């Protein structure tokens, strides 16, 4: 039980720390944004509160100091300096270690707090305790004054009303006035009755809750009215937020990104679900889709109208269930960009290069698994950009560029794909150097004829270390080949473009989701294959003149554009007799179009992609397999790889015809 609660807390804490970090980083560029200060403060406060609730007293105490210091910023006592932000970020880093290992962390935490205190103008950095105690609750209702009357028998029962007044005065300095209107004339006065009321006017607003606590032991006969002040004057725009519901998505996006701020979902409208449960649901939906295809096949065979109608209904329901399940798994890319901001900031400091990091399209959503898996490759690419791509400030000045380099990360939808591009305005790739290194490492022969693009792509080859000098930041053996492999495992593609002197652009093309796709079922030599429909542009007849020819590749005239085409029967070594009316499926990937000659186009299918085992993982041209309605297995074509094969064949032909 405790473990489960602890897990939940840890997850919440991780998210809060990420939100805090993001806000702090945003504050670095816009230190006057009071919304950001408030947001950071709220994260801190929630973290402190739940930490104390779950028994992490050391962390809670640490956060209290952190919060106290930050409160002075919020109150406007102290202007936010880069030193404060740096110290606050360092403090931020200590929070999660303190949860996992409170004992060994306390010294480090103390050191961080001292740095923070030094960063605060005016010495020790601790604000008056009363202010720090009251301030965090500012978002809660407050009162400026109160009137109260105690029941007449209060003194008989042994209470001392003056203690109440003392307690109230402890909340805040106050003016106390007696209300004497109920005091009876002397003749009828019972000296043991207590008939005086009081009005207490506070000099600063006091939490209603705190006032009610003072009167906790005075029950129903108490007359108490509170006056004035409903929201904290110090944070006029801060929404009242239920503790523990702050999520990174709910916090305002970084204004620097230009992305529209997301409306925070109200508490209770979202819930956390373990990823494994979603995975399980997705598996079940996948199985349903396979069985549904089977039902379709049977219904079509039987031609029974009633069965066909049911099959159609099930198809509709399965499609709806599929998209609902998939949408549940979608996560905005913004959920990982926070750590990239931090990374770039740290890289900038470490490499002593000013780096301007821009992010756009953070609201673009991808499958959760995909988001988790692309984080590391992106970190690698960012390191490369910062370390190798961007020049030193002096070199940039000499080249007539602004001293600070720019690294831009953007995400956008493109059909059924998501494009993630990482651009820097650095020195660009040097084809000569790449060539020399590739020759030295035996990747290409010295007389190899390679286009610039092919040369650039060599850096993705295993055994090609990117930097001539291995630095602290990058080039420690895990190379671009790992990046490419990861992206290809996700059925994505990676492209590289560079202009010497002006920068490099890396584009990742990723499918929206991993598990289920719409496919086009085709037949080649009696065997069935599935082509992802997202990659299909159109289907045309193969002109008769070309139908009977052999040779693996040629060109096709599609409305005036020459499109190379590949005969899949050649590629797949099919011996069956030629089809009389072959079709061409025009597919595109990575900005290139090619035609695939097939014997027959069978149908559209929903395709649940199953990974190929290690025994077949080395094959190029297939991204997986799927099970068809009749229970047979069909291979899923990897359009990206097929297009690459087509391009190789095309260049081969061009070279031959040129020779």
């Amino acid at each position, binding site marked *: 039980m405790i473990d489960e609660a602890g897990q939940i807390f840890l997850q919440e804490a991780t998210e809060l720390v990420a939100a805090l970090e993001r806000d702090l980083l945003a504050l670095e560029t816009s230190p006057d944004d009071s919304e950001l200060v408030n947001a950071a403060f709220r994260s801190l406060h929630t973290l402190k509160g739940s930490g104390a609730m779950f028994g992490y007293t050391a962390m809670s105490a640490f956060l209290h100091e952190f919060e106290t210091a930050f409160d002075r910023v919020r109150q406007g006592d102290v202007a936010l300096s880069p030193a404060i932000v740096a110290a606050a970020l360092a403090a931020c880093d200590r929070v999660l270690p303190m949860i996992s290992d409170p004992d060994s962390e306390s010294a480090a935490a103390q050191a961080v707090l001292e740095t923070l205190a030094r960063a605060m103008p005016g010495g020790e950095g601790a604000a008056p305790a009363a202010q720090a105690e009251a301030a965090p609750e500012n978002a809660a209702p407050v009162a400026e004054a109160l009137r109260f009357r105690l029941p007449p028998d209060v003194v008989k029962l042994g209470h001392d009303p003056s203690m109440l007044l003392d307690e109230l005065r402890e909340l805040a300095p106050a003016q106390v006035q007696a209300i004497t209107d109920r005091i009876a004339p002397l003749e009828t006065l019972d000296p043991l009755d207590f008939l005086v009321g009081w009005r207490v006017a506070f000099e600063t607003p006091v939490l209603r809750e705190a006032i009610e606590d003072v009167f906790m032991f005075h029950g129903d006969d108490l007359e108490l009215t509170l006056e004035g002040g409903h929201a904290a004057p110090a944070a006029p725009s801060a929404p009242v937020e239920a503790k523990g519901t702050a999520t990174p998505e709910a916090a305002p996006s970084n204004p620097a990104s230009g992305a529209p701020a997301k409306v925070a979902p109200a508490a209770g409208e979202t819930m956390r679900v373990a990823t494994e449960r979603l995975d399980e649901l997705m598996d079940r939906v996948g*199985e349903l889709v*396979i069985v549904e295809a089977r039902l379709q096949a049977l219904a079509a065979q039987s031609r029974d109208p009633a069965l066909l109608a049911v099959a159609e209904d099930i198809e509709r329901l399965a499609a709806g269930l599929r998209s609902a399940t998939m949408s549940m798994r979608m996560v905005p890319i913004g959920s990982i960009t926070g750590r990239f901001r931090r990374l770039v900031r740290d890289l900038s400091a470490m490499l002593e290069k000013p780096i301007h990091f821009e992010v756009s399209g953070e609201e673009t959503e991808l499958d959760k698994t995909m988001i988790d898996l692309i984080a590391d490759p992106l970190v690698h690419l960012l390191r490369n950009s910062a370390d190798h791509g961007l020049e030193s400030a002096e070199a940039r000045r000499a080249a007539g560029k602004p001293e600070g380099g720019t690294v831009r990360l953007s995400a956008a939808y493109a059909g059924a794909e998501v494009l993630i591009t990482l651009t820097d305005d650095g020195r660009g790739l040097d084809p000569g150097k790449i060539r020399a290194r590739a020759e030295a490492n035996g990747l290409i022969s010295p007389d190899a004829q390679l286009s610039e693009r092919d040369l650039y792509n060599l850096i993705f080859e295993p055994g090609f270390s990117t930097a001539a000098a291995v630095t602290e930041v990058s080039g420690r053996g895990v190379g671009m080949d790992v990046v490419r492999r990861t992206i290809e495992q996700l059925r994505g593609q990676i492209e590289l473009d560079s202009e010497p002197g002006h920068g490099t652009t890396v584009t990742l093309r990723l499918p929206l989701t991993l598990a289920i796709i719409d496919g086009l079922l085709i037949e080649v030599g009696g*065997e*069935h294959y599935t082509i992802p429909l997202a990659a299909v542009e159109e289907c045309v007849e193969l002109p008769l003149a070309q139908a009977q020819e052999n040779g693996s590749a040629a060109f096709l005239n599609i409305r005036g554009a020459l499109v190379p085409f590949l005969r899949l029967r050649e*590629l*797949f*070594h*099919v011996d069956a007799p030629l089809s009389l009316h072959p079709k061409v499926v025009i597919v595109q990937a990575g900005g290139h179009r090619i035609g695939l000659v097939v014997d027959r186009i069978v149908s559209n299918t929903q395709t649940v992609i*199953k990974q*190929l*085992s*290690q*025994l*077949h*993982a*080395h*094959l*190029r*041209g*297939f991204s997986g*397999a*799927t*099970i068809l309605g009749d*229970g*047979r*297995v*069909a*291979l899923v074509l990897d359009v990206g790889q097929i297009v690459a*094969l087509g391009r*190789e064949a095309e260049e081969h032909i061009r070279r031959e015809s040129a020779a």
Partner: protein
Amino acid sequence: MNGNQIDVVTMRLGKEMLAVAASNLHEILEPVPVTRVPNAGSFVSGLINVRGAVVPLADLRAIFGMEAEETTHDTRMVVLDVELEGGATTVAILADKVLDVSALDLESVDAAPPVGSRWPTEIVRGIGQRDGEFVILPDLPAIFKSHCARSAEPRKDIHR
């Protein structure tokens, strides 16, 4: 079962009798439709559907240099787990006939003779005896691992 015996599935492949540990066995299927995998070579040349899972189908004949044979009504697909680098992988192997599941006395198992044998020691764990006949214990993990390693080498396998 005492310490010197293991349960094995015995099967026939060509003229030979093979035995694989029954602990890794999933099920034995009558032949199901096989999907050919282009350019995959003769050893693991196809895929089959085993209860909704896509499972590679291997033919050990390609490894042991035997002639391919027609499917008969005795032909079976033996589905089992093989330990590979990335964890246990489910594969199916073809058998001309599955004989039985029985206890094999490990004391009767000798190492494969190093020379003059069609059974290379790298891929055969040993040769035992049963009812006066030799039983070959193939080292399936080694066979599949060397297949993975060999096929990973040339990258342009589809080409030409």
